[in-house]
């Protein structure tokens, strides 16, 4: 019975995530309306057949803006996860390969240091120094992702390093670097993929938060967070401005989380055995 739920998670999750991914890709070629074109005559329209999600105070089509906003969110989150993976995983593998060495200590202590700065604080500092923008949001979220992946990788790799097959590889004369690539990395890949989808969804939430307070993507680039910020003063008479971007974030993140859960259950043989 439980395995049914797992598969349902995977299907619903991937469908939701795919919808937004496709919307983002399609928005490069086509949107129902031009999101840079102001049309004051049609401002603050409620959702109707012409404007599916209504229009904002400048008469822009909300549906089109959400499509383009998906692009911003997904791009920021993907790059931020990429930064975390590309820097964090090698750091974690290194720390585990030379565990309890000074290098390990140094890597892990720097990770703790980064953890003392929540992503938003990093973003605030970067913004204070370089000014706001999508790139700075990416860097802020990316920096925060590094220790997440480094810790996960080190922890998982450490338990693998005690396995007998690693000892066997060492008796075959293989060095730490080669063992990390041949034996450790392939065996923690599942874990990294699952954590990757979780960080991806957290990245989308973080980007929305940063844009909401004006530290993320700047106008005229549409973003879900800023759409919500702009809707706030009009929420009492035009709630649709706040509802649609919010649901877009909610559903994307929900989709990614369900997808991640489904993947983990698919990968985890312990759960699979239990569900039989």
């Amino acid at each position, binding site marked *: 019975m439980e395995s049914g739920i797992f598969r349902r998670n995977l299907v619903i999750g991937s469908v939701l995530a795919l919808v937004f991914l496709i919307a983002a890709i399609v928005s490069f070629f086509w949107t129902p309306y031009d999101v840079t074109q102001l049309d004051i005559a049609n401002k603050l329209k409620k959702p109707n057949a012409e404007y599916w999600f209504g229009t904002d105070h400048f008469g822009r089509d909300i549906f089109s803006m959400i499509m383009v906003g998906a692009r911003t969110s997904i791009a920021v989150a993907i790059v931020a996860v990429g930064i975390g993976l590309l820097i964090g995983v090698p750091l974690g593998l290194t720390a585990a390969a030379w565990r309890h060495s000074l290098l390990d200590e140094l890597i892990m202590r720097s990770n703790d240091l980064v953890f003392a700065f929540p992503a938003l604080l990093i973003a605030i500092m970067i913004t204070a120094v370089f000014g706001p923008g999508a790139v700075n949001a990416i860097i802020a979220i990316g920096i925060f992702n590094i220790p997440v992946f480094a810790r996960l990788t080190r922890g998982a790799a450490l338990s693998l390093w005690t*396995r*007998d*097959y690693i*000892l*066997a*590889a*060492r*008796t*075959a*004369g*293989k060095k730490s670097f080669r063992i990390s690539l*041949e*034996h450790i990395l*392939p*065996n923690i890949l599942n874990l990294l993929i699952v954590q990757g989808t979780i960080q991806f969804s957290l990245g989308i939430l973080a980007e929305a938060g940063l844009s909401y307070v004006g530290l993320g993507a700047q106008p005229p680039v549409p973003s879900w967070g800023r759409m919500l910020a702009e809707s706030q003063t009009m929420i009492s008479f035009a709630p649709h401005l706040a509802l649609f971007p919010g649901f877009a974030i909610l559903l994307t993140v929900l989709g990614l989380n369900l997808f991640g859960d489904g993947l983990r259950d698919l990968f985890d043989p312990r759960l699979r055995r239990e569900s039989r």
Partner: protein
Amino acid sequence: MTLLKVENLQLSIYDNPVLHDIDFQVDAGQTLGIIGESGSGKSLSALSVMQLLPKGSKATGSILFDGEELLDKTEAQMCSLRGDDIGMVFQEPMTALNPVQTIGEQVAETVFIHQQVGRKAALEIAAQTLEHVELPNSEFPLSRYPHELSGGQRQRVVIAMAIALRPRLLIADEPTTALDVTTQAQILALLKRLTSEHNMALLLITHDLGVVADIADHMVILRHGTVVDSGETGTIFKALRHPYTKALYEASGHVPERSVKHMLPEVLLDVNAVSRDYRLPRSGLFSRPDSFRAVDQVSFVIHRGENVGLVGESGCGKSTLARAILGLEKLQEGSITINGEQVLADMQMPASLRRQVQVVFQDPYGSFNPRHKVKRLVGEPFYLLDSPPAGADYDMAVTEVLESVGLAASDADKYIHEFSGGQRQRIAIARALIIKPGLIVLDEPVSALDVSIRAQILDLLAALSAQFDLSYLFISHDLTVVRSVTDRVLVMKDGRIVEQGDTEDVFSNPQHAYTNNLLDSVPVLPGADNP
């Protein structure tokens, strides 16, 4: 008087039948041994009596305890029975205790959930019970936490919890399997004493025929969820009337057929005054880290074709010594010479030496990268060669070595999860053989296997040694196995070799007190009339 009578017990888990028609009974003051290999259903039989079965289980038949049907009891009734009238001891003492509670609290808990006594009175009973299981309060106050105790001491605490209220039935599920042989002997002696002092019935579940032979009055032998043989212990061993009993008995004491000593005079491995230190974690930020000498000035030689045993209890340094010989860790003192080439302290072992030594580990499940095919797994040591075979040569080498350990060439394209424990151990041997080393270090190679599989692997090892003039360093805590397969034996204690000599000499006439103690602790199989 019959205390426990199990009749026609059947058990299914999620409609999957696992026990078919189990019958046994035990009288007060008597010990019943339940024997079986893994998957025989011996633990589930015990858990059925406790009614602590896994989710989805359904038991039918009859379990009469003191004339009352346990299968008809409610959960609440069973709760008041467990711990009070029936106590249970489990296999793994390291995880059987709550790590965040003191041993005193845990033993006292048995008392105050069953009796209307105050905390102080319960702790008083706990203190007496711990004394009773030979953990003196002066040395082991109630305020100790489990992590401060050794495995054997923890098992005593678990026993104390089970017997605090003097139950009439004690169930012990592999209570000594995770323990060293000397500790095993002490725990078995304790159980024996407790049953006779309190006229308690003991249900002892084990895979080890030697253990039951020592302590049980009656025994039942289970296989695939059915009782295949039962009776009075002495009679069973004398008669060996059931073929499975006989097979089990023979496998337990199996001595592989070994050709006359094929040992050559040439010295293959020379370990000379080797020491290995472990750095302990620093106690303070500025204090210098202390170190612990795990191997202390050890010297011995192995000749080509010679099988040498290394015995000792956990923590004696035998695995550390093995890792040094494999070149996995540098020496602090001394030297190792393999086939004339020497490696000194603080030196990395060069590939030319590594080529001479390969290894087989204990755990057939953790020894292989689950993501590689057998072909790649077995060929891993080729990395040590200057010009490893490629293409068709590689495949041929893999086929050849797989066939020499009794597997098929077609197994090369399978993944490791497709094999059983015994087959995996064959693959591990194939991996060690593929670059034709002179010496294979066998680190507890059969300890995780059932006795029948164990016998097959031992036969294979003996045959390979004769065929290729292979030398073995056979590391084991199991003295019976070491005695059956080695020419010479080293006895290790606290990082030192306390005795070495020809296996038969050492076993029949031990010189060192520790060796003597070890040998005395080994449970012995009684001789059968018709072997």
